[in-house]
């Protein structure tokens, strides 16, 4: 099962690299956007909240794209030509299904770690962001009134 996961990851290395480069570029873009907002005194905190929310939205999109790719790959394995390769292997069906579930776990972890990295990078590049959004996050968490 692990070998199958390894080969799937190998097959997706280009996709992952491109995806993570795009997410990295978006994080940097959001950081510069916030810095621009801070320098403009007319901007208010709700506008600043848009920065992490947009970033979170991009990561959700990333996760959705990866999940769709997982579903398409598994469908191709079931009904397409590559199924001969996967289902011809001397492996039990549970091992093949297990490898797909593991890939989904890898994608989930990658999204969570990537999201956290984005937050850290944003906090480092735009130090005022954390202070600006703290009251809004606090208000949301404490009262649900946002």
């Amino acid at each position, binding site marked *: 099962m692990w*070998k199958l996961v390894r*080969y799937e990851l*190998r*097959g997706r290395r*280009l996709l992952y690299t491109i995806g993570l480069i795009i997410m990295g570029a978006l994080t940097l873009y959001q950081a510069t956007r916030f810095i621009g907002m801070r320098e403009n005194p007319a901007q208010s905190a709700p506008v600043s909240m848009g920065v992490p929310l947009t970033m979170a939205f991009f990561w959700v999109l990333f996760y959705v794209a990866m999940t769709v790719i997982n579903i398409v790959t598994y469908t191709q394995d079931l009904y397409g*030509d*590559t*199924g*001969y*390769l996967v*289902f*011809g*292997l*001397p*492996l*039990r069906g549970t091992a093949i299904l297990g490898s797909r579930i593991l890939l989904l776990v890898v994608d989930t972890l990658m999204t969570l770690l990537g999201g956290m990295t984005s937050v850290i990078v944003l906090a480092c590049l735009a130090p005022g962001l954390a202070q600006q959004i703290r009251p809004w996050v606090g208000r949301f968490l404490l009262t649900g009134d946002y």
Partner: protein
Amino acid sequence: MSMLVQIGSLTKRYVTTTALSDVTLELPEGHIMGLLGPNGSGKTTLMKILAGLVSPTSGSVLVDGVAPGVETKAVVSFLPDVNHLDRWMSVGEAGDFYADFYTDFDRKRFEELLDIMRLTVGQKIGSLSKGMVEKARLSLVFSRRARLYVLDEPFGGLDPLARSQVLDALVANFRTDCSMMVSTQMIAEVERFFDDVVFLDSGRVILSGEAEELRTRRGASIEGIYREAYGHVETRKV
């Protein structure tokens, strides 16, 4: 002589069609069997069942004494009639894949076959022509020291010269402790290698036996017998 494949009263039904109906045949160890028939006669279904990819509706199938499943997949080397390799793989990565999953994969033999096929490990499957992909797939399948080779239309994308090279390589590498089942429409070129022949039509065995005996009995080549057996099919098409 021990039988590597034993099939008894095998029937395979799909929702609306019957692909195989009451098929009974045996393949002895060390023999090459030609599985012949027009399109839709059930050849591919029979091969998929032997490869453990499709379950029979009824009847018995034994490969090396075991019903098709995880155990037999380890000893059956199956070449489907379509490109089953991932496009992102290089020829070398496809070899690594086979070596990782099949304990009978012989890397030295793989390299020798790649030399014969004029392929290199760095070539990407997605960038190869149809004929080159076919050569890569044949190299992978024949690099396994399997007990049973099941080849579905193995020479489709090959030019005549490559076909002859591949056939020579296959015969040179064929061992007496394994067997081979080949389906092909290029009967004239391959029939000299057949020990046994099975003719299928609409999922039924209409003729089977030792190739030499059939030739003598019918006074014709296997291709001639094929034309005679399926003449009604060709006439119907016209």
